């Protein structure tokens, strides 16, 4: 039997999460390199239309794993359903996007199967017969090549943006879709989730901003936020922040950029005193230009900056505001 790569796409509320295309692209690239078969699965209730959407891409097969117990999402049900499926299918490797939902159940699933997850990977590499998965360590200061030292199935999650979702290859013809009905006793599901909601106070939409001045821990004190605001005003942009600033209440939560906040793609992202933890980077790496000012020359933000200034933001921002005002006058 040929070896199989299984990509589990993510659906929420009956809609495909677009980040799943990146994982399909990763699966296609890995299949091309290894010669292994690429299959996909979607898990939920009434997910046939998502299965058909995925079937149009270059994959061998799509499984629609269905059960009434899978709606709404719970880690118990997703983990139990996938375990049943994987016990019978025995793929070599299972790929998923590193979303909050996957993070919620994949360690439970892998542990139930006495396996491990190499989580939040940014790529993979074939090294002879070995497959190495690259993940960031120490908040992006280092990368590590990690190998599996256990039996299959191997579980891997990929970080948002690690592969190009728009590079997914279409199939010559639609792949077959197979529905797999899973029986799950309802009393095995312990959590009772309520409806998903958005907090009303999320009033600011930073996704449309062309210029964003964003502050991180380097701003030191709440009163210094004013300096960043002055720069944002001079530039005609919006003020934003990394998570710790909003956690401290220095700026409201709806100004937060990153995996738990907004994902932005402005023309200019000016990062003041932001080190560039992974959770922040995923929210702003779509920016057309990144300018970073940070006193730590090893800050990971410089990895993705187009223009970098190693220095004290309190020295540089005041004359910068003046120069911007002059340029605009």
């Amino acid at each position, binding site marked *: 039997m040929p070896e199989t790569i299984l990509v589990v796409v993510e659906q929420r509320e009956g809609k495909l999460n677009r980040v799943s295309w990146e994982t399909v692209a990763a699966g296609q690239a890995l299949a091309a390199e290894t010669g292994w078969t690429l299959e996909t699965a979607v898990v939920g209730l009434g997910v046939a239309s998502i299965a058909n959407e995925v079937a149009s891409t270059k994959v061998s097969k799509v499984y629609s794993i269905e059960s009434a117990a899978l709606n709404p999402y719970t880690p118990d049900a997703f983990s139990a359903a996938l375990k049943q499926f994987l016990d019978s299918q025995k793929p070599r490797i299972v790929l998923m996007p590193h979303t909050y939902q996957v*993070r*919620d159940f994949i360690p439970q699933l892998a542990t139930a199967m006495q396996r491990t997850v190499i*989580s939040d990977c940014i790529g993979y590499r074939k090294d002879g017969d070995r497959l190495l998965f690259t993940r960031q360590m120490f908040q992006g200061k280092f990368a590590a090549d990690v190998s599996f030292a256990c039996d299959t199935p191997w579980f891997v999650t990929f970080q948002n943006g690690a592969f190009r979702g728009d590079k997914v290859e279409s199939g010559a013809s639609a792949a077959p879709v197979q529905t797999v009905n899973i029986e799950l006793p309802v009393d095995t599901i312990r959590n009772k989730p309520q409806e998903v909601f958005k907090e009303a106070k999320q009033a600011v939409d930073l996704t449309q901003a062309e210029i964003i001045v964003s502050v991180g821990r380097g701003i030191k004190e709440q009163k210094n936020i004013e300096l960043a605001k002055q720069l944002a005003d001079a530039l005609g942009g919006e003020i934003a922040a990394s998570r710790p600033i909003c956690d401290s209440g220095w700026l409201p939560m709806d100004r937060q950029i990153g995996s738990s*906040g907004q994902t932005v793609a402005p*023309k200019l992202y000016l990062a003041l005193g932001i*080190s560039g933890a*992974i959770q922040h980077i995923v929210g702003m790496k779509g920016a057309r230009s990144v300018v970073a000012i940070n006193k730590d020359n090893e800050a990971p933000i410089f*990895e993705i900056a187009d*223009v970098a200034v190693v*220095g004290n933001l309190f020295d540089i921002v005041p004359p910068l505001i003046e120069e911007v005002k002059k340029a605009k006058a």
Partner: protein
Amino acid sequence: MKILVCMKQVPQKDAPLKLNEAGTWIREDVSYEVNEPDAYALEEALRQKEKHGGEVVVITAGPARAQQVLREALAKGADRAIHLEDAGFVGLDAYNTARAFAATIKDEQFDLIFTGLQSDDYGFAQTGVILAQLLGRPHATIIMQIEKTDGGIQVKRELEAGYFQFVDMPLPAVLTIQSGINKLRYATLIGIKQAKNKPLQKVSMAEVQSAVGANMQKIERMYIPHKSKKTEFLEGGASEIAKKLVDKLRNEIRVL
């Protein structure tokens, strides 16, 4: 409520890190601090205890230096501490760390177990969920609020892009805590004094060895990431840099 908080000591956020000679880990001669989400997990446990009574126990795994995290937790108000003390714990994968914790607490009945949602060093984001599965308990991740209910607890899960969800769940349970769930307290002088007399249990690697197996994933090589983008560094005095930057904003980035 009897609450266990799993905590980790990690390098300080702005500590300059260097690779070890083998290129598999960092050189350990750096300054350390508590993993940030774990500090919020501790704070939440202390607040729950203040509301509902009970006990807060803190646990960590790591060499002697990691005791500092427990001392700080005791000074802030935790009742007792457990230190799985061995340098070998640093190299365990999430599965084995969770197995070592599970073996250590097997005779205790915690209503709640908290971990931070992930660590700043490995960033697995898995240990809490694995521990829940090993103990046969329900879990919820990335938690921003916890309320006691008649049948158990109601938690607020953070989802992506500003979405949230309330989840009702029974006790005992395991929760992974998000940074920002509360406001951190400082240790008081009196707390620091009292901490010296609080129990701190040490557990050796030998005591949990039978529960721990070989790692199922292995770091083959650690390295400084390859740069994917060409970065231009601006140098000079502050006013000179400001002028250069405005020139870039106008002529290259074209936002002025």
